[in-house]
């Protein structure tokens, strides 16, 4: 081996990654309390949209959205990912995008169409709904969302609107008290 590269000092290690802000996801090593609820948002001849696997944390709510076409499909475009339909993230979402929203009992709302806050914003003004992970193709998708903050007690609305599927705006209320009861069962193993 030569000597050129060995003559440079090793750089300092990077600082550890910063923990997530509360609106970005659950705190590390915390496990949400299970909310025994399931909300069927869309159930048509062609497609099914279900909110399931709700896990409540003191700081917010995790849930999974399942989208399934009832018939064989070669549709590869994720209906929950605006960017896959139109690259310019334009101001008008196309009809193929499934709009998902949460209506808090106090009138506040969170929407999948809203632009997320700046990454370093510590206290966003409005509730935030972020997609954290997920997978799928060919007519079946599973997406995990994080909703911040935890909705207050009272009916909490899951709202859907999917123009391309002929689904007009539709709201299904779930029991906020059940969400709060589950949040009390959340388990924190981390420092915080």
């Amino acid at each position, binding site marked *: *081996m030569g000597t*050129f590269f060995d003559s440079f000092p090793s750089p300092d290690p*990077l600082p550890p990654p910063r923990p997530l802000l509360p609106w970005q996801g659950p705190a590390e090593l915390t496990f949400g309390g299970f909310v025994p609820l399931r909300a069927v948002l869309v159930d048509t001849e062609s497609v099914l949209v279900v909110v399931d696997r709700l896990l409540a944390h003191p700081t917010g709510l995790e849930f999974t959205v399942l989208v399934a076409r009832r018939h064989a499909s070669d549709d590869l475009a994720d209906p929950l990912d605006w960017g896959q339909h139109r690259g310019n993230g334009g101001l008008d979402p196309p009809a193929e995008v499934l709009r998902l929203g949460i*209506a808090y009992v106090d009138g506040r709302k969170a929407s999948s*169409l809203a632009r997320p806050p700046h990454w370093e914003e510590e206290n966003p003004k409005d509730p935030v709904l972020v997609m954290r992970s997920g997978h799928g193709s060919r007519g079946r998708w599973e997406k995990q969302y994080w909703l911040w903050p935890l909705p207050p007690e009272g009916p909490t609305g899951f709202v859907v609107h999917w123009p391309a599927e002929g689904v007009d*705006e539709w709201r299904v209320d779930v029991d906020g008290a059940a969400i709060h009861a589950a949040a009390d069962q959340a388990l924190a193993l981390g420092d915080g």
Partner: protein
Amino acid sequence: MGFFDAPAPSPPPLPPLPPPWLFPPDNVLGAFVPLRTVLIRSSSLLVVAERFVAYPTGFEFTVRVQAREAMITEPMAADAPPPTTGEPDGGAFRVGVVLPDGSRASSQSRPALEDEPNAPVVSAYRGGGDGNERHQRCWVWPLPSDGPVRLVVEWPAARVKETWGELDGAAIHTAAERSELLWER
């Protein structure tokens, strides 16, 4: 008014211009420089530096590694060492330059994000390839003065030993004058 009928959000602002020592400027039409430097040419391996593009703030080029038969299984690793340890990855691809004024840079150094470095920077910032071919796009900052630029590469994982070549720095320097500022940012 429907739930989703909120006023349309204003478009996000353009991201700031990246630090000039990390990437080519995104508001300049760089000048393609038809240079090619063969670093290794054997019966089984070809390593070349090519596709040079000159900017007022530096130049970019591609290091291409082509094996005749043996599959290269290793990815042409990232420029920076693993973030957790700070120790260089022994097998990773590295590229270095010696500018005409004698100043030197290696891709294993991690340049600062916020403060302008007081030494040149070379980064292997994007790569690709499959099968018997791998390539890395590299960026050198700043634009060297008019004179020979020495180039050095090493990729232990692909059995590429430290190998030196020379670039026509004058051609790069002259070409940069042909680059065009598209708009101020």
